[in-house]
């Protein structure tokens, strides 16, 4: 038994398997949870999962590859519009999500090789510009998108609580995909390439990582995930308009969340999303006027005091805690 355990610990896949097991346990909890939740908590959890997915999309680029894709909300908006238009035209949910996500992925692949030559703030600003362009198109192609007046989706069958359950289960599935993406980016050959780019792009290129291609593909994966979240969001709320689905504050939130949870980690986005959404909900209900102030202060505190996020903070202090526990027992 001990030998087996030792072999398992030294296996190169031990980390991946452990994370996968933890993910499955988490997903199992999420699957059995709904009957115990009121509609209010179910909706809150749905939005936590949605933001965790968007934050994972941000984490894929900004956390793992080190490129702050601040304008990633553009893919959320594209996914929402693509899926909404497809559903209005009579497509089912799964094909509609695909119709929303594929153009977003194509856009990332098309502009990636150009924008990904910029680094740091310059790249962040370029992605902001991309979002402005696409959202202006959505607002002005009114014959196609309904323009600034927005777009209503066909109502699904059943009661409001049916719709809430549907949205919840959709986001649980997407959340599972986002965890799989996190494990892939952490442990695969491709993931090694991404992390090497974040650590030192010049040395990564010299080691044989085709940096421009790896960055573009990573951004495409990020776009797919974010766009799928946009599509599910459109179906969930039933009405979308450009100012709402191309809203930069979605990106800002996602950015704070993955930073708070732990950049370049698998569960960081979920941890960040849980922390921020509960904090925001509390702030909304008690301090309506100050909730943005609180969000801003949180951002500053995280950047100053938790540069490697909550998960990194725990990982850093875990050995000391374990030693203390051993000492006590």
């Amino acid at each position, binding site marked *: 038994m001990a030998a087996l355990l030792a072999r398992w610990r030294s296996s190169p896949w031990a980390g991946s398997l452990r994370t996968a097991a933890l993910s499955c346990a988490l997903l199992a909890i999420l699957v059995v949870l709904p009957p115990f939740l009121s509609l209010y908590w179910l909706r809150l959890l749905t939005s936590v999962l949605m933001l965790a997915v968007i934050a994972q999309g941000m984490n894929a680029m900004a956390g793992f590859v080190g490129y702050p894709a601040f304008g990633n909300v553009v893919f959320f908006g594209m996914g929402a519009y693509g899926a909404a238009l497809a559903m209005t035209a009579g497509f089912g949910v799964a094909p509609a999500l695909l119709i929303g996500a594929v153009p977003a992925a194509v856009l990332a692949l098309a502009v990636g090789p150009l924008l990904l030559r910029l680094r740091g703030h310059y790249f962040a600003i370029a992605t902001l510009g991309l979002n402005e362009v696409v959202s202006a198109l959505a607002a002005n192609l009114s014959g196609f998108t309904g323009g600034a007046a927005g777009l209503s989706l066909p109502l699904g069958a059943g009661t409001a609580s049916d719709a809430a359950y549907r949205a919840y289960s959709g986001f649980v599935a997407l959340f599972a995909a986002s965890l799989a993406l996190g494990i892939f980016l952490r442990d695969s050959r491709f993931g*090694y390439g991404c992390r090497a780019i974040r650590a030192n792009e010049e040395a990564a290129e010299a080691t044989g990582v085709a940096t421009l291609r790896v960055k573009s593909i990573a951004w495409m994966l990020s776009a797919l995930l974010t766009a799928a979240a946009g599509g599910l969001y459109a179906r969930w709320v039933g009405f979308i308009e450009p100012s709402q689905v191309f809203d930069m504050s979605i990106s800002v939130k996602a950015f704070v969340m993955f930073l708070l949870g732990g950049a370049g980690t698998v569960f960081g986005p979920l941890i960040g999303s849980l922390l921020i959404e509960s904090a925001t909900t509390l702030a909304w209900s008690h301090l309506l006027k100050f909730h943005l102030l609180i969000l801003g202060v949180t951002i500053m505190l995280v950047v100053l005091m938790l540069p490697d996020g909550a998960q990194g903070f725990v990982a850093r202090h875990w050995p000391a805690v374990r030693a203390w526990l051993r000492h006590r027992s």
Partner: protein
Amino acid sequence: MLLDVQDVSVQFGGLRALNGVSFGVQEGEIVGLVGPNGAGKSTMVNAVSGALGRHRGRITFASRDISGLTPSRIAEMGLVRTFQLVQPFRGLTAIECVTLGALYGSGTDRPSGVPAARRLAEQVLAFAGLSAVAGLACDTLNASQRRRLEIARALAARPKLILLDECLSGLNSSEVDQGITLVRAIRERGIAILIIEHMVRVMATLADRIVVLDRGEKIADGPADEVLTDRRALGIYFGTTA
């Protein structure tokens, strides 16, 4: 000829960093590239490894023209470099750095999958005497360990030719000896080496052939013992007029 540099010139604005330099490296050979600061040694390494992008002249590697290829393409063909200023992969452990080399790097004998790459990385770390620090973050290693890690990363990339850009500078005497032993062991694996180094001792013990650059021009090229006794070359090398 494994690496064949023909008439390479590089111009930075008004400065001609390299002026029509030609030389070659045979399979299994150790060639030393020496010259005073500003002679164009690093420019040559950057041109050969693809980091420079544009240059004049022709560079072929394993009989294929590599001028204008990206560094990653060139590394994939089996020409891998180390950096003069060690470039640690911040946030990666030593074994992860070397695994990266194994996963990417040369296209021949590439390990299939992360576990195989990791096993290769363990072997290479042992070869470089770094097994004890495999799990440490690579930016916490000391200067000598970093230099050896840089070489280990390049070795795990299974190169045919390795460019060692001042891989022993900043080390003390016994660390330099360790480095010399390591470079010899690399050659015994059949890997050709182009080494840039300031220390005459290193060149005298390691290099089969020495190429001397000065102000962008090649001024000597021959067997190590001949070049190292050439008064003119040595004079330039030490910055004195002989």
